[in-house]
């Protein structure tokens, strides 16, 4: 016999099911209960940077849109700072960096308005440098500075749940007009198959002067989106 490690096991995941909207987006589901819903305003009115819209559909193995998805976005502000004590720097008042959307029940289209995030410091093992902060430098809650030897290209982290998805899927949205940064991005470069990298790149168009990025997600089949185990 050996001693027993006293760690707990993570609670196992279960599908969000077809009625996820009731719990997490009741207003969007046509169901008015809370004074205040969460996740509809990612950037807030004070956020600096370029205002953008991100849209897409989620497609299943048969090529059909999935119409009961919920997506959550997590992103840094235009200077690459997350609204979290462990991210060095400050965000604008009202900037949360987190949003939640559901798909249209008829079309499967989803979309959210935000600002384009800035590049974010990469972890040490990816070629970033983390060390005690210099006085004049941005510090995180642990007094560390991030020299940013290497940065990750601007990206929005996504988490996707739906009926039929047993455990939430993680992916990232990168931006078409950041080709140079994308080419240097340490996560992008982890993807061995170059033709799969483009599944993470949102295409850019202008609609009434507003940049709109298109990001379709393929759960399975040809051009399946790259999903991460984070």
């Amino acid at each position, binding site marked *: 016999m050996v001693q027993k490690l006293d760690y707990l096991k993570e609670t196992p995941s279960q599908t969000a099911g077809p009625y996820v909207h009731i*719990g*997490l987006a009741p207003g969007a589901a046509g169901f008015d*209960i*809370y004074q205040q819903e969460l996740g509809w305003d990612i950037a807030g009115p004070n956020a600096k940077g370029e205002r953008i819209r991100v849209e897409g559909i989620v497609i299943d193995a048969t090529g059909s849109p999935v119409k009961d998805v919920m997506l959550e976005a997590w992103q840094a502000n235009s200077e690459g700072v997350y609204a979290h004590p462990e991210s060095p720097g400050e965000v604008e008042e009202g900037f949360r960096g987190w949003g939640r959307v559901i798909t249209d029940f008829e079309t499967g289209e989803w979309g959210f308005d935000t600002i384009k995030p800035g590049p974010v410091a990469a972890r040490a093992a990816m070629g970033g440098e983390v060390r005690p902060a210099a006085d004049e430098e941005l510090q995180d809650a642990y007094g560390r500075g991030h020299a940013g030897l290497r940065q990750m290209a601007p990206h929005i982290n996504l988490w996707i749940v739906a009926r039929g998805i047993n455990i939430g899927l993680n992916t990232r949205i990168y931006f078409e007009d950041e080709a140079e940064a994308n080419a240097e991005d340490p996560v992008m470069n982890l993807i061995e198959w170059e033709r799969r990298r483009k599944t993470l790149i949102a295409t850019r168009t202008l609609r009434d002067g507003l940049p709109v990025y298109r990001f379709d997600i393929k759960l399975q089949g040809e051009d399946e989106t790259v999903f991460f185990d984070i």
Partner: protein
Amino acid sequence: MTTPAEFYERDRAWHPPAQTPIYKTSVTRSPQYALLSLQQSVSEITGPTFGHTDIDPLDRDLIHNYAKDGGSAIGERIILHGRVLDENARPIPNTLVEIWQANAGGRYRHKKDTYLAPIDPNFGGCGRTLTDENGHYYFRTVKPGAYPWRNYVNSWRPAHIHMSIFGTAFCQRLITQCYFEGDPLIERCPIVNTIPDMAAQGQLVAALDMNATIPLDTIAYKFDIVLRGRRSTMFENRLDGN
């Protein structure tokens, strides 16, 4: 100086795999390529935070949060409570817990739910709360009914409450379902059985908690939730320098 460290890697064998043919909808919605393993960066170890200005204290009382004046939801009155912990058994304070469920007859207030059990005019079916400084949460609600669903011809979901939990980092994000001790439908449920390990399945079954029951008023069930834990800082040099 303390160093923020990574979270333990997720034990994918403890969770359901993406493709589980017994749960038919998963067949076309499951990635076929292996997930790409990422070492965590600031993008993964940070996550949204919530405060008391985001929610209302009544949000945690599903018996009353959608009821008309003086009314209350129909059904077996229950307290669902427990703690949100991490894998190091440390409580996670001030984290958002959201739930949704069918009413006592097994019917959701959702336009896509056409089950013949009636809508309860005084029951919405969703609630949310923040854990306290000890990681504790509680909801007051009614016990949801079992309901039929289209998987096999005669598939019934055991009574369950859907739960969404945040933690402090985006990589801890979790949605799961809470079942109730003693329900004979649990072991027959294809969705429960997407989880290969019986001990892992058992982790989703809330225990009848007579000590927390309010006599002559409300039965209680206890359901602890465990989110991913984080490496300690004792090996920080290796962590950052490798």
